């Protein structure tokens, strides 16, 4: 309750309405002022593109950069700017400040034509092209790969097949074992007739995916969140942050039909990756092929990717140097919570520095060259 609510003099049902009216009046004042709701504001440059896919490099701010560069692979279902949502809660800014050279893959918004894109197109072709572009540009043999959520699963698959191009692997809130009964998505997806969905819809609408995510916690995400918002309507900073988060939540690209069909059927329903039965482009994906040092981070209160889905990654890979971090937050809190900015992101930067290329160590930022 806001201070207004606590000091409201009237009692009975009318008290409630009077309190709401007061807050609404103040809120309207806030909303009528210009609000800073920009997302993904950290400067970056386009360095490679292939159709709708774009590869950006965030402009380094440190004099010495940790080598090799980090390529961030985000999930297909939401936009990558979650890692740079707002200036004071930006994983990107924290990492840049600590000398990490960051590239990020923007998968784009699939259109009609992209309904036929397969997981091979995404991983073997596009992701591989991005990593080759970074290697070529930075003059390195391999990169550090940082995969988030579904992007983490892609990173596991990629590293298993292209180990020679990956120096370090960081997976964040990444699902591997989809056959746990702790996650509602795991339970529900088992009942999905994915063939029918793709055959009828082509691309799977982002709004449909979003509805599924909101259903994971409907009271909090559909009602309680907005009630809380109404209580802070008079707080400009709160409103700005709320709008940014809302923008990210509802900025959901459609899912390329064929890739979605395979991801749900073979990973969610058949758990093929965890069982060592998954193939890509006719090659078996064996996670034991991964020998790169691994840092796996999961949220202990994550309801999208429950800990049980992610905790087994370290045991599944062949790496000798591996570390698992259980961070006390939900799926998004891993990136935007205050504690994440203070504790987790610096830890990742330190880990990357510790695992930087021994031959080159720190290298100078590209002088006079943007992007």
């Amino acid at each position, binding site marked *: 309750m806001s201070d207004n609510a606590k000091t409201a003099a009237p*009692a009975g049902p009318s008290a409630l309405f009077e309190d709401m009216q007061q807050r609404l009046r103040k809120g309207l004042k806030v909303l009528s002022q210009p609000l800073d709701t920009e997302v993904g504001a950290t400067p970056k440059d386009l360095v490679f593109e292939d159709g709708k896919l774009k590869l950006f490099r965030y402009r380094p701010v440190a004099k010495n950069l940790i080598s090799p560069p980090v390529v961030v692979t985000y999930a297909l279902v939401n936009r990558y700017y979650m890692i740079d949502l707002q200036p004071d809660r930006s994983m990107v800014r924290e990492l840049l400040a600590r000398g990490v050279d960051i590239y990020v893959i923007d998968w784009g918004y699939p259109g009609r034509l992209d309904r*036929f894109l397969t997981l091979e197109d995404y991983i073997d072709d596009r992701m591989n092209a991005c990593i080759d572009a970074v290697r070529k540009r930075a003059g390195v043999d391999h990169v550090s790969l940082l995969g988030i959520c579904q992007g983490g699963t892609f990173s596991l698959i990629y590293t298993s097949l292209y180990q020679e191009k990956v120096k370090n692997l960081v997976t964040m809130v990444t699902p591997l074992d989809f056959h746990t009964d702790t996650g509602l998505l795991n*339970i529900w997806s*088992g*009942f999905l007739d994915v063939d029918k969905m793709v055959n*009828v819809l082509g691309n799977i609408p982002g709004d449909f995916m979003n509805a599924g995510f909101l259903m994971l916690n409907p009271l909090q995400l559909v009602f*309680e969140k907005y009630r809380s918002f109404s209580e802070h309507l008079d707080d400009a900073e709160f409103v700005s942050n709320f709008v940014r988060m809302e923008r990210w939540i509802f900025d959901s690209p459609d899912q390329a039909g064929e890739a979605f069909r395979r991801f749900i059927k073979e990973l969610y329903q058949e758990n093929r990756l965890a069982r060592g039965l998954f193939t890509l482009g006719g090659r078996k994906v064996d996670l034991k092929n991964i020998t790169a040092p691994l840092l796996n981070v999961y949220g202990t209160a994550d309801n999208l990717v429950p800990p049980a889905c992610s905790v087994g990654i370290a045991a599944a890979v062949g790496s000798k140097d591996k570390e698992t971090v259980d961070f006390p937050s939900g799926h998004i809190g891993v990136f935007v919570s205050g504690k994440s900015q203070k504790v987790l992101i610096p830890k990742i930067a330190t880990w990357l520095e510790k695992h930087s290329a021994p031959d080159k160590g720190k290298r100078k930022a590209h002088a006079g060259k943007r992007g």
Partner: protein
Amino acid sequence: MDNPMAAWSALQKSWMEALKGGKQGETGGGDPFASWCKMWSPEGNPWPDASPLSHALAAFGSYNRLFDAWSRASSSGADSGAATEKVFGAWREIVEDFTKRWASLFSFGAGEAGKNLGADPAAIVRHIMGSVDAFREFYRSFYKPWQESMTKLAQRSAELAGRAPSAEVVEQFHKAWMEAYEETVGRFVKIPSVGPAREKYDLLWKGVDAMFRWQGASLEFALEMQIPAREAFEAVSGRLGALLKSETTVEEFGEFYEALVKETEKRVFELFKTERFAAAIRTTLSATLDLYKAAQDLMEEQLRATPVVTRKEMDEVEQELVALRRTVKAQGNELEALKGEMARRKA
């Protein structure tokens, strides 16, 4: 009559009265055919009294009374099946009578030539009555259960309407409604299409069917979702009475709300974890996709007659385009690799 409209009106009136009254002599009503004839020829009936149409129309009056009885039986939830059988019986008699008379007229004077042309009165009657009997069989095997289902639904609805309104009542009505649908239109839609023409028209039927099923599934899903909300409200409803007293503070409202959210959340998660709920999602989603598909198919069929490209055609072109892009890309990569190899060899 000078005014043709007045004459027409009088004709309609007399006809309707005749229909209501039934056959002359039995009910005291007028013969509709005779009324019609009199309208056009006030001097008298220019047609022989024994004309088949006159008889058929008179008999139709009796049929009409039976039909009224059947309608009443259907709407009151009484045994409409038995009433329908009576209507059928009357209808059969009318057709038989009419057919016999018509066939005798047709063959009148035709002699051997008429018979050679297939105008054998007995054969005509036999053929037509065979069709009538076939129709009656169709009714018995298909329409009768339909009637019975509707009667059952009417009885169930009347029973539920007498109860106090509640979510259970809505749920039970919905179930009764869906059962009736499955036994009636649902069965009809499942009859396989015979030939392309039927397939074309069946698209519309399938669309209607998909809409009903989607409506049913959505309602079922909504009812499923209502359960935890209702239970939670019942759990905290004891506090609601106290809350509505004038001295209640905003904080107390807040506490009530928090308690309601907590109770609902607990029950919602219990429900969400069940396979029953996952199955409900599947059913609802499946019904939604069926509806979407039915609309797509209808649209596809309509567009085929226009110069506008259809989705199916677009899909084919796009699939080919994507395959071509992959080939071009792969060949481009090969070319680059060869260039690199050549450069290495030169060096």
